[in-house]
């Protein structure tokens, strides 16, 4: 491995650990540990939400899809994601921030469901926490597999060395600093990802002689690469656009809304978040598109390496090291957020809610920390066999969260008549539909039927069961502000 690249990586990893140590000193109770004591400014909240959302898919998967699958017909998923993220910031962020505070200062999504519907049976809390724990353990594990494979291929580590190095750094700063460490590291990682996705395509396209020349080379290879509709069916386009529906139910993303310092910060955070996301998506698309032209004479065996190869051929090793660290940043920023949400499910939704109601703050923070370690260890064990079929579960984790939690969260914020039975029915209908639909092989992304049926289930079941109590309705009005 090049010394400059290695040095850049070591500096980057030490920086992340240092943030964990600083955040450790500022963390004294469970609210601090899982939500940063609700003191995130708009910039950190926005970039942290973006970096947690976008894993290595943004730097490797999307450019790779554009490079391999046919150019501009891959834009639909980016359009769906950008619109979904905007609607999430516009309609969910502020209301959720305010409602979680009104509803007994809820600090996790299961906590919010229980407090929003005054569910003394703990059914909503336990089921939603189990869904989070199950999917995120596999999701985290899958991220670790992706990271380890990437660094095995790029830097000559063995698979297991790469797996443990990455995991130890992520566990260390998440274990120590909790939400503040995760948010601050995500913020820095988000900036790194953004800069990499702006610099790489600009330099690549200028190396190719400019935009016109790049388009001409691609058009000469196949004019179909220049059209967004070629090779796409209506169901294909709808399925790609529907990825945007997933945002409303992703616990690791919407927890950033709950952690904002104030509802008044939402507009600024939304602007920062959308600028970051839209230009990062453009960067990823144009990286793949430039790759079609740049590597026309010697096509890449693995299209997902297009970003990595650009960093190696276009930049000196020091810059290349920083740009490659952006890939590690993308992977780490997603895994750490998922680990933290999972640990909060154990500490807040199982330990405090069921096992030990009078647990002290200090005790709960340590339960959270130990949970980070245990969940990460399970994820590492699962990841130690990268071909395990159990990892296939993540293929519908995005759809699962989107359909199970999305309609329930939106309607719980905007429909006063909704009750806990409706919430439970929506959650189960969304999750079950996603699991069953994914086996049917219809070609339609399972989040579409899952989201629609879950919404219908919430409406019907809420309307045929008892009206929410006056206390719940008063709280709803209070959260509306």
């Amino acid at each position: 491995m090049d010394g400059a690249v290695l040095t850049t990586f070591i500096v980057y990893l030490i920086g992340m650990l240092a943030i964990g140590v600083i955040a450790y000193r500022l963390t004294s109770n469970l609210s601090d540990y899982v939500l940063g004591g609700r003191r995130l400014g708009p910039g950190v909240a926005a970039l942290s939400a973006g970096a947690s959302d976008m894993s290595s898919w943004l730097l490797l998967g999307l450019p790779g899809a554009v490079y391999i699958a046919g150019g501009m017909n891959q834009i639909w998923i980016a359009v769906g994601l950008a619109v979904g993220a905007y609607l999430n910031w516009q309609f969910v962020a502020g209301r959720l921030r305010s409602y979680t505070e009104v509803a007994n200062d809820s600090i996790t999504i299961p906590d919010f469901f229980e407090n929003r519907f005054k569910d003394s049976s703990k059914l909503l809390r336990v089921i939603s926490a189990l869904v989070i724990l199950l999917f995120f353990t596999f999701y985290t594990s899958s991220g670790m597999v992706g990271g380890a494979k990437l660094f095995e291929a790029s830097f000559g580590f063995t698979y297991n060395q790469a797996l443990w190095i990455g995991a130890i750094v992520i566990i260390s700063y998440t274990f120590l600093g909790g939400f503040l460490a995760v948010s601050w590291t995500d913020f820095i990682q988000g900036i790194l990802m953004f800069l990499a996705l702006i610099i790489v395509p600009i330099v690549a396209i200028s190396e190719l002689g400019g935009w016109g020349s790049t388009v001409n080379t691609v058009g000469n290879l196949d004019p179909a690469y220049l059209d967004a509709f070629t090779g796409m069916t209506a169901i294909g386009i709808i399925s790609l656009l529907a990825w945007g529906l997933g945002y409303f139910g992703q616990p690791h993303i919407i927890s950033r809304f709950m952690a904002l310092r104030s509802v008044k910060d939402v507009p600024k955070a939304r602007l920062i978040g959308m600028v970051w996301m839209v230009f990062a998506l453009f960067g990823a698309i144009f990286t793949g598109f430039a790759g079609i032209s740049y590597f026309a004479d010697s096509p890449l065996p693995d299209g997902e390496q297009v970003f990595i190869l650009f960093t190696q051929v276009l930049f000196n090793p020091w810059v290349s090291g920083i740009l490659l660290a952006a890939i590690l940043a993308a992977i780490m920023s997603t895994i750490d957020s998922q680990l933290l949400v999972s640990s909060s499910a154990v500490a807040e939704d199982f330990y405090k809610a069921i096992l030990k109601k009078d647990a002290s703050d200090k005790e709960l923070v340590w339960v959270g920390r130990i949970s980070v370690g245990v969940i990460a260890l399970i994820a590492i064990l699962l990841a130690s066999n990268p071909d395990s079929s159990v990892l296939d579960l993540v293929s519908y984790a995005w759809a699962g969260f989107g359909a199970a939690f999305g309609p329930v969260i939106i309607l719980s914020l905007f429909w006063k008549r909704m009750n806990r039975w409706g919430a439970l029915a929506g959650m189960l209908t969304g999750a079950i539909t996603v699991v069953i639909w994914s086996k049917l092989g219809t070609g339609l992304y399972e989040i579409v039927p899952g989201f629609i049926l879950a919404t219908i289930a919430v409406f019907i079941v809420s309307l045929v069961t008892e009206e929410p109590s006056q206390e719940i309705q008063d709280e709803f009005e209070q959260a509306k502000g």
Partner: protein
Amino acid sequence: MEYSLTGATWFWLLVPMLATVVLSIVTCKPSKSEIVTTNNVASNSEGRG
């Protein structure tokens, strides 16, 4: 032969995504009522000072 992206591709690539940025900019400005409230607070503070 000169090639370019099709018009529909440019439209779907640029319009929806940039619209989310434009809408974010438009909605980032404080509303009139917020400005009035802020001004009132400012003048009240001056009065007390």
